[in-house]
């Protein structure tokens, strides 16, 4: 190795160090090369603290104050906002709506996603093409997806409405969007499921492809049927992938906002008002800043507790 290492270009080292020593960045170079991790990590941590931690502290401070529309000032109200939290029926409703939304979306997306992943893994021709087509819904901007489904679900000319009427699932009097809002929840779940079932397909398909084949072959030799093989061997081996996929979807589902904002605005009434939409309403529509901050803290704590319990129970590791 008399030539320069192609990876680091060492033969120029002496010259470069001389340049470093003269340049104003000399001190910076010393710090970076000192084997201490903090100079490498600090810039991004500062960014995360500024955008993540500052708002959290602000929310806590703000939770003890409230905007007074009469005076136009933010005034201290002590524990009033927190007391209000305990008696807020609308929050109770939003919590139940969120729970319904998250559970329905998770179950449907997981079951559908698993079924499609198994199908794509079972050896159809040109499976790469089908997989690529499946990925696309995931990267459509959620607001654009919601707008698309606003037309598709339109009571008068929506193609989806027409299709569901055709198979007799719903009728003109009780359309997906509008009417008494009986199907409003389904109406916001449809774009959600359309966009995020592919997420499960993608992860579970990658998992299926990486599974060792020996146990399956052994089971086949032992004469186990396809269902037995799937339940007793494939599914348990897929567990780590399933755990990660559900975790990521769960975390994102708690944040859901776009579909509801575009499709129903939480309505009719508060039928599709999930937690994050309710917090948005309090902060930005009815201008109850303090109470909006309280709701924000509640959502954050809920998300962190849920995710932590989940990570522990299912032993997800990074």
């Amino acid at each position, binding site marked *: 190795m008399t030539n320069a290492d*192609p*990876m*680091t270009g*060492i033969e120029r*080292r002496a010259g470069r*160090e001389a340049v470093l020593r003269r340049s104003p960045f000399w001190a910076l170079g010393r710090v970076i*090369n000192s*084997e201490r991790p903090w100079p490498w*990590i600090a810039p*991004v*941590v500062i*960014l995360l603290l500024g*955008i*993540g931690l500052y*708002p959290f502290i602000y*929310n806590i401070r*703000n939770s003890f104050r409230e905007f007074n529309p009469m005076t136009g000032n933010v005034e201290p109200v002590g524990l009033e906002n927190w007391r209000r939290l305990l008696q807020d029926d609308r929050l109770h409703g939003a919590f139940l709506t969120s729970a319904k939304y998250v559970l329905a979306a998770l179950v449907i997306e997981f079951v559908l996603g698993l079924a499609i992943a198994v*199908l*794509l893994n*079972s*050896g159809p*021709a040109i*499976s790469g093409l089908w997989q690529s*087509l*499946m990925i*696309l819904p995931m*990267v*459509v*901007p959620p*607001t654009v997806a919601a*707008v*698309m489904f606003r*037309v*598709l679900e339109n009571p008068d*000319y*929506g*193609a989806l409405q*027409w299709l569901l009427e055709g198979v007799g699932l719903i009728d003109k009097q009780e359309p997906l969007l509008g009417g008494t809002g009986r199907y409003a929840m389904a109406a916001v779940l449809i774009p959600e499921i359309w966009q995020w079932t592919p*997420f499960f397909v*993608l992860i579970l398909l*990658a998992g299926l492809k990486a599974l060792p084949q020996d146990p399956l072959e052994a089971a086949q030799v032992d004469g186990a049927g396809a269902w037995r093989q799937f339940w007793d061997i494939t599914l348990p081996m897929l567990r780590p992938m399933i755990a*990660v996929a559900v975790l*990521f979807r769960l975390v994102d589902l708690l*944040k859901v*906002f*776009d579909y509801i*904002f*575009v499709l129903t605005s939480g309505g009719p009434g508060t039928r599709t008002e999930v937690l*994050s939409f309710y*917090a*948005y309403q309090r*902060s*930005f529509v009815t201008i109850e*800043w303090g109470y909006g901050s309280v709701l*924000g803290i509640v*959502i954050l704590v809920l*998300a*962190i507790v849920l*995710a932590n319990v989940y990570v522990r129970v299912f032993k997800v590791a*990074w």
Partner: protein
Amino acid sequence: MARQTKSWRQLHQGTIVKTLLAAVVSLIFFAPILWWMLASIKPTPEILRSPPRLLGFDPTLNWFRVVLGNADPTRFNIETTGSVGRGSGGSTFYSIPYLRDSMIIAVGSTLLVLLLATPAAYALSRFTIRRSKDLTLWILSQRMLPPVVVAFPLFMMFRDFGLIDTYRGMILVHAAINAPLAILLLRSFFDEVPRELDEAAMIDGATRFGAFRGVLLHYLRGGLAATAVLSFIFSWNEFLLSLVLTTGIVRTVPVASSTFTTAFATEWGYMAALGTASMIPIFIFILLVQRHLVRGLTLGALK
């Protein structure tokens, strides 16, 4: 794959059934996109036709002429809507400014996040850091932060610093949103490069920074590309914070498409044209990094 090289004649009957089923399922998922792209070249009566037609309509480029070419929408109203009425605030349909704003913010935040996250990912992968597990979990927990929680404080903070309706404000926010993704994903790529490579280079006299640069240039191109594409897409699609932190002087595509909905039904064509124009570049990007998609979407937890 061996399966794909079989000729059609050799295909088992079961394979044909599976292929048909796979085709039907994936086309169901693709159908709304296809329909929306078609709507962007259909005249209004055709968009509002139930059931929609795949073929046999007179295509029109008028929506794109307005949305991308700044043509006067009133000129086209008779052709496309069958009425002479003017849409609400015609000029707002011209979407090049929204696409430009989205592009500047997405590219800017992607560059910023790569600049800040790459060294951090390298440090997490290479240095022994006290409580590095806690640090990783803290970074991960930033990803769980619901935007609605930070929206209001950020709005107040931005107002105080004069960052409302600025590119630099939005770039900072989107970079922070994407930082956890970038750090954890890049760390998983760094972890795949043996530590011994750095150590050998440093024994040969390279500085730590030189070793970092070497690994980066020689082994991490694919990983950087995948991280960049995912950051770009998440920034491009982000809605709530863009809605709250801008008032219209700067306006991103997702915010613009949601404002189109509040007006009359005759504006679907403009929305379809904007939606199509904003989706196609993303599709091309994502198909290019398909290989790394699983790892990206799970922040490196699954490879």
